[in-house]
């Protein structure tokens, strides 16, 4: 029997959808081992945020109202205390920048090993075997964690968001643990979140990404965005486009950006460097629009339109509009 603690991720007082991927992991493990899972909702407005998570089959929703904006230094002691007071075999969060920042800190506090950014879990004779992408997605390793308690972060594209299973979970408020010295030397100043009317990159069915070749922020807006919207897509970008300041950093796809796996991925003027492929090669259908037939994106593209994007993208936008 393995009990699991899911650590929810909040943004502006609401649970982010990343939490539902961690719940999917928790269901897989607890179903295979006859265990139960709790969800720890931690942050400002935790109680309200917990309400949206009541129908997912958690044994208990634990809430901890930590004030003052997120820092791992402020949150980790409480997560570690909850872990110590209960007999969880696994603590899990999504491998978002939140989960990857918080969970190893919790692991250090409780002497646990970390399986980070896993793509699958299998239970054999009660032992959890984790599969995770390495070498920018060019090798998959299967590993175990040898400590009693294990800390896991899950890749959102590989653990589909859990759907509600009905019922309602009990709620219980937990004490906020005292912070250690580190918390006294870090101060949350501000957070700027990006608002978009478009679907979230990691959840979208269609993603259209642009590269350096778009040459300016204006071209992203005037050339690429009409296609993005005609397809009802989310917009992504290569690192080169983000570095050049054409689009904000949260649109970067790749080894150091987001990992996406939509039904349709359209790479516009993107060469397909290995680090970019790491973030999108799990997409179902991949279209490349590039004037260079030799561009490495051909390694993964199903359809490769050899064309100048400044001609092809407006034409494709019109065609999509008249088809839809």
């Amino acid at each position, binding site marked *: 029997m393995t009990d699991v603690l899911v650590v929810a991720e909040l943004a502006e007082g609401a649970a982010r959808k990343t939490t539902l991927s961690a719940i999917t992991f928790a269901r897989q493990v607890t179903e295979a081992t006859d265990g139960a899972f709790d969800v720890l909702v931690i942050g400002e407005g935790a109680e309200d945020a917990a309400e949206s998570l009541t129908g997912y089959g958690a044994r208990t929703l634990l809430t901890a109202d930590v004030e003052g904006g997120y820092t791992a230094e402020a949150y980790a002691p409480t997560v570690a205390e909850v872990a110590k007071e209960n007999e969880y075999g696994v603590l899990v969060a999504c491998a978002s920048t939140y989960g990857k920042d918080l969970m190893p800190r919790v692991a250090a506090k409780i002497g646990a090993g970390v399986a980070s950014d896993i793509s699958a879990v299998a239970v054999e004779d009660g032992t959890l075997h984790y599969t995770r992408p390495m070498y920018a997605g060019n090798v998959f390793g299967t590993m175990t964690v040898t400590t009693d308690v294990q800390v896991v972060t899950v890749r959102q594209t590989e653990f589909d968001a859990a759907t509600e299973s009905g019922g309602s979970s009990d709620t219980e408020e937990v004490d906020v643990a005292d912070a250690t010295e580190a918390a006294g030397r870090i101060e949350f100043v501000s957070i700027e979140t990006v608002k978009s009317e478009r679907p979230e990159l990691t959840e979208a069915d269609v993603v259209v990404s642009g590269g350096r070749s778009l040459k300016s922020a204006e071209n992203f807006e005037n050339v690429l965005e009409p296609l993005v919207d005609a397809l009802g897509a989310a917009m992504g970008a290569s690192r080169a486009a983000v570095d050049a300041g054409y689009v904000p950093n949260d649109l970067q796809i790749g080894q150091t950006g987001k990992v996406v796996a939509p039904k349709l991925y359209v790479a516009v003027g993107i060469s397909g460097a290995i680090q970019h492929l790491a973030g999108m*090669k799990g997409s179902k259908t991949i279209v490349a629009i590039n004037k260079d037939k030799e561009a490495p994106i051909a390694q993964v593209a199903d359809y490769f339109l050899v064309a100048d994007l400044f001609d092809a993208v407006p034409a494709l936008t019109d065609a999509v509009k008249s088809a839809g």
Partner: protein
Amino acid sequence: MKILVPVKRVADPDNANKVKVSDDGSRVTSDGLEWKMNPFDEWSLEAALRLTEDAGAKKRVGEVVLVSIGPKDEVQTIRQGLAMGDERGILVEAEDDDLDSHVVAQVLEAIAKKEEPDVVFLGKQSADGDSNVAGTKLADFLDWPLVNYAMHIATDDEGKTFTVKRELDVGQQTLKVTAPCVFTASDRILQPQAIKNGVTADDFAYPESDGGRYASLKGIMQAKKKPVEETTLEGLGVTPTRVNAYGSFTLPAARTGSTVFLETVEELVEKLQTEAKVL
């Protein structure tokens, strides 16, 4: 300001698709691939150098110490960093097979306690294991604050406090930290004006670059003479406790089908409608 920069070597990450798995699946083999400094560590090193120099006057004003944990030939990675401008290096000899992010954090904890740097600046992840764990565990072992994925750093007073912006997947966060502390870097740390150290003029801009600075010939010559201290886990009093055990490795399934090259938008729309059925 004194900065400790942990670096490791990885099989050439630009050719990671040539990495193989042994027949029995027990090992990853990178035969034929060159060793390179982990690019994420190269970014941190570049940031550390920028934090500790007067860029206008081309003068060092602080100290950067490189640490590498690994087999003896890892010393080449250290020399490569020294050629970029660091002062000295520490090699902790260990077998790659005995290391995981937990052990690395244990070793770095021991070194940080000995060296007492203001900042430990790690790469956010190793480009081979892609774990993204060592820096965060280290910060907790030391009970120091950590800023993961730093994209902009400004020192407020002689390197004792920093205002740091970090990248999130929902946007950006600004934090104020007091040394000693730990940083990891995002891609944007290499932007021309991402680092303000209070010594280099505020309007100074580094050249656009997506990696660390090149070593000059002079730098390479000097690096050969810079001190590299060699030690071991026992020497540091570290009892390593590995917590991750890899059982097997596989290569990802190749994408099915082959690429269809098209000349016109009409053909593409046709394929997407009738073949892929995504329009």
